[in-house]
């Protein structure tokens, strides 16, 4: 096949800037072949190289005695004691999900699950954080339907329980929805598998599904803004096959147990290219691939297509040669392809052969090691002016405004489409704070949460970044878990714009400060930039996925108050309404600074709550919507009413940080108050749970009325069938 000539236009079409191409010419020492150009574009795009964010990501807090593996591998690995480890990561699949919501979201789930089981862990929990445009935007309902069905379609079939997540709506996502998928797995701490190849002349083995033309150029697409031609990009979206992924999981775990695996890497973005270069680069070896041996789905694929295909459910592995027969037998049993497609070589070369032709012959280490890294210009965003007067509103009407908004209504329409209990170890299902999953066969459990408030980050990226970490940390604490570590999924607009770059830099600094102060290291993550359409960027959305450990399931805190329980607020209430959910949902205003986060108070109040969890029948963190929304949600989930004594809107709906709402009996409330006074933790009795009415101050509404509003608003606002 005749390969196209390398022209300026072709280079630009690969997303490579002139100075980047000049760097390629210097590395290669000649004009690259078409296949080589494709390989460079795949390795050097933002998605694979992190070229805009790397220098800032290095500043994050990533270490701690519990951390076995921090950022840089397929997923982070954290010790949970007794020889076990939790392996987790969150990753975006934003662009594909906007173009083809079902498959885009499904393959996002598939990709993150592979990241986890590539390391030898069996996936035990999934979450997803979704951001959509305005509920009444013509595309929103279509995207919600497709994304939710796609996540369910993949995760349910694969057999991982989806135990948490977020769903939000804002017009800034009209042209760019966000789909951030999280997965966690359990492995033996001494049996973690890494991607670094070792040994010269070792067979490089291709595992899993066959290669087709799907997704060619996907990683490059994910690194560009959307324009009017977005619809034409549909063919670059991959198609997911959870059935193959499930078999790949079982076969890989059997193979790992057999001792045949030297190193293993899943084929995600830029498929064969990224995985082969990664294994060679980390192991200090070269790699030679023979493309005629790659199992294919269609005939006549060029080297360029084979190297850039993003066909799903594939793995690349370096095998112990003496174990080849055993390895083949395992894959045959699961009816999966297994092919030796190359070998490791001593020279620092990445050699790709097709037939007798050399399609690429590049210095391997330079492909990742010499990828461009930018110190992009940035400007710190101006501090928002103080919040002006807030219009008067009756407390129950304010609550109704929140319950009627799809961002704060009950999201059962979403999570009921996810199997939250497969594995039979789910101890807390979605909708009740952090999800909780028992570590199979033990008394331990893990808590999972995903949090960010993009309005806060937009107003003040530093405080907003801190707040996202603090909220995740609090959600774990409120479940009775000791926070272990976090994963971050940073979704931003075009980093070539200094004000967007400023959001990214300041948010990372805020995340770093909070993670350091809370001993909550970031062990994995993903950056998604260029989330903009026709020049309009999304709200800055650094999603924080948090994982906590419950040493014994008896120490988990419940989510449901009992009839007659007191509603107790731990932490200081000042009534901060700037950037609040109430201001946005009731008045359409996003004004003022976000609530400041006092990290020392967070730490102290969280430690206090954990130390006194035996006194509580239920706990939740207080975040957007404040006390009133949290108290309603807690009560409604238990089928109870609630009475709150405050009448002041700021006290009821303010979003002050470092606070928890606790439900407990009278004696327990007294004990808690005494302990709080001794520990210097502010504590206030806010009301009581029980009955069949919601009373705020002097005004009362039937629980049934508000609960119906809360349960039906999501589908109604989106025009979806119940």
């Amino acid at each position, binding site marked *: 096949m005749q390969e196209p000539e390398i022209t300026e236009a072709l280079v630009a079409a690969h997303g490579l800037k002139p100075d980047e191409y000049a760097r390629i010419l210097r590395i290669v020492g000649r004009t690259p072949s078409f296949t080589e150009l494709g390989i460079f574009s795949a390795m050097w795009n933002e998605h694979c190289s992190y070229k805009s964010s790397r220098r800032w990501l290095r500043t994050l807090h990533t270490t701690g005695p519990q951390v076995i593996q921090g950022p840089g591998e397929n997923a982070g690995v954290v010790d949970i004691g007794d020889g076990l480890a939790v392996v987790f990561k969150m990753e975006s699949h934003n662009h594909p999900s906007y173009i083809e919501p079902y498959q885009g979201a499904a393959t996002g789930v598939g990709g993150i699950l592979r990241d986890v089981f590539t390391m030898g862990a069996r996936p035990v929990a999934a979450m997803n954080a979704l951001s959509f445009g305005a509920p009444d935007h013509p595309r929103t309902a279509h995207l919600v339907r497709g994304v939710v069905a796609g996540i369910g379609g993949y995760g349910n079939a694969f057999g991982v329980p989806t135990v948490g997540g977020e769903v939000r709506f804002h017009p800034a996502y009209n042209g760019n929805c966000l789909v951030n998928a999280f997965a966690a797995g359990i492995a033996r701490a001494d049996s973690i598998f890494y991607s670094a190849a070792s040994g010269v002349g070792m067979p490089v083995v291709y595992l899993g599904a066959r290669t087709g033309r799907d997704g060619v150029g996907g990683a490059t697409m994910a690194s560009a803004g959307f324009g009017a031609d977005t619809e034409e990009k549909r063919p670059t979206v991959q198609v997911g096959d959870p*059935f193959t992924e499930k078999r790949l999981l079982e076969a890989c775990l059997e193979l790992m147990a057999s001792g045949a695996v030297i190193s293993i890497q899943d084929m995600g973005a830029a498929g064969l290219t990224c995985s082969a270069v990664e294994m060679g680069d980390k192991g200090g070896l070269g790699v030679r691939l023979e493309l005629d041996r790659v199992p294919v789905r269609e005939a006549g694929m060029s080297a360029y297509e084979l190297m850039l295909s993003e066909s799903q459910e594939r793995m690349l592995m370096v095998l112990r040669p003496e174990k080849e027969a055993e390895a083949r037998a395992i894959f045959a049993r699961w009816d999966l392809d297994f092919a030796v497609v190359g070998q490791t070589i001593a020279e620092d070369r990445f050699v790709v052969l097709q037939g007798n032709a050399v399609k690429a012959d590049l210095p391997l280490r330079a492909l990742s090691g010499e990828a461009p890294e930018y110190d992009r210009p940035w400007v710190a965003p101006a501090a928002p002016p103080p919040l002006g007067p807030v219009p008067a509103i009756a407390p129950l009407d304010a609550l109704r405004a929140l319950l009627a908004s799809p961002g704060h209504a009950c999201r059962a329409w979403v999570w009921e489409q996810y199997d939250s209990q*497969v594995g039979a170890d789910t101890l807390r299902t979605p909708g009740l704070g952090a999800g909780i999953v028992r570590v199979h066969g033990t008394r331990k459990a893990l808590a999972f949460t995903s949090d960010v408030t993009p309005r806060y980050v937009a107003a003040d990226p530093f405080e907003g970044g801190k707040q996202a970490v603090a909220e995740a940390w609090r959600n774990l604490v409120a479940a009775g878990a000791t926070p272990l570590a976090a994963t971050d999924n940073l979704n931003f607009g075009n980093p070539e714009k200094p004000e967007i770059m400023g959001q990214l830099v300041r948010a990372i600094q805020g995340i770093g400060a909070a993670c350091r102060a809370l001993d909550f290291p970031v062990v994995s993550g993903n950056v998604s930039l260029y989330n903009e359409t026709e020049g309009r960027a999304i709200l800055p959305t650094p999603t924080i996925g948090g994982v906590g450990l419950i040493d014994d399931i008896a120490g988990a805190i419940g989510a449901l108050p009992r009839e007659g329980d007191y509603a107790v607020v731990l932490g200081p209430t000042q009534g901060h309404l700037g950037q609040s959910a109430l201001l946005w949902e009731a008045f359409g205003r996003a004004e003022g600074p976000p609530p400041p986060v006092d990290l020392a108070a967070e730490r102290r109040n969280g430690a206090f709550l954990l130390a006194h969890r035996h006194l509580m029948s239920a706990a939740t963190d207080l975040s957007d919507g404040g006390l009133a929304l949290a108290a309603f949600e807690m009560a409604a989930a238990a089928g109870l009413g609630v009475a709150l004594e405050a009448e002041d809107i700021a006290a009821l709906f303010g979003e002050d940080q470092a606070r928890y709402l606790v439900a407990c009996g009278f004696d327990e409330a007294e004990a808690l108050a005494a302990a709080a006074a001794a520990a210097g933790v502010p504590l206030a009795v806010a009301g009581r749970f029980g009955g069949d009415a919601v009373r705020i101050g002097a005004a009362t509404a039937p629980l049934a009325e508000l609960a119906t509003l809360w349960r039906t608003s999501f589908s109604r606002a989106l025009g979806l069938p119940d």
Partner: protein
Amino acid sequence: MRAAVLTFPGSNCDRDLAVAFAAHGFAVSRAWHKDTALPEGVDVVGIPGGYSFGDYLRCGAIAARAPVMAAVAAHAARGGHVIGICNGFQVLTEAGLLPGVLMRNAGLRFVCRRVALEVATAGSPFTALWQAGDAIVLPVAHHDGNYAADAATLERLEGEDRIAFRYRDNPNGAARDIAGILSANRRVLGMMPHPERAIEAAQGGTDGSALFRALAGAFAVA
């Protein structure tokens, strides 16, 4: 007292079902879809939930034709006990071991929630510890649980007291609120809800345990 749990490629509740059997005193072995015989001395066969062969054709249709299903059919014909849960129920109908079919949910969406059920008969080795009319709660998680059969079959199931469980608030459009049915000899049970996910309090409910205890009791007597 021996149970065998089948695994098809795509099964994903096989471990959970094995754990539930073991927790109720069964010696559990596993059978692979390509096996042509069941393990020696098996009393109960468990067909687990999941997406056998991806469910890319009709749910359970390919699994119903797997080699191991001939052995299951022979086991059932000898009067052996079989329980099919969720995808397992679909496999049993596709294999002709139970009548009817499971169609796409009426709402066209996957549905995962705890549902209230009525135990419709105590007359089976699976439901013997309940009274007919007992209210229990079990989780469902399926996309295709909408049970359908022709009128004559539904009449026969009713007339022969072969409806094991009914939904109190039907989540999927199933005919006559059917959540589970029995074979004519009452030893083959197919049900959409997941009793294996409700055997201990930590899971949020223990109503599923009575089913496994009843089954264990049936063999203790025998």
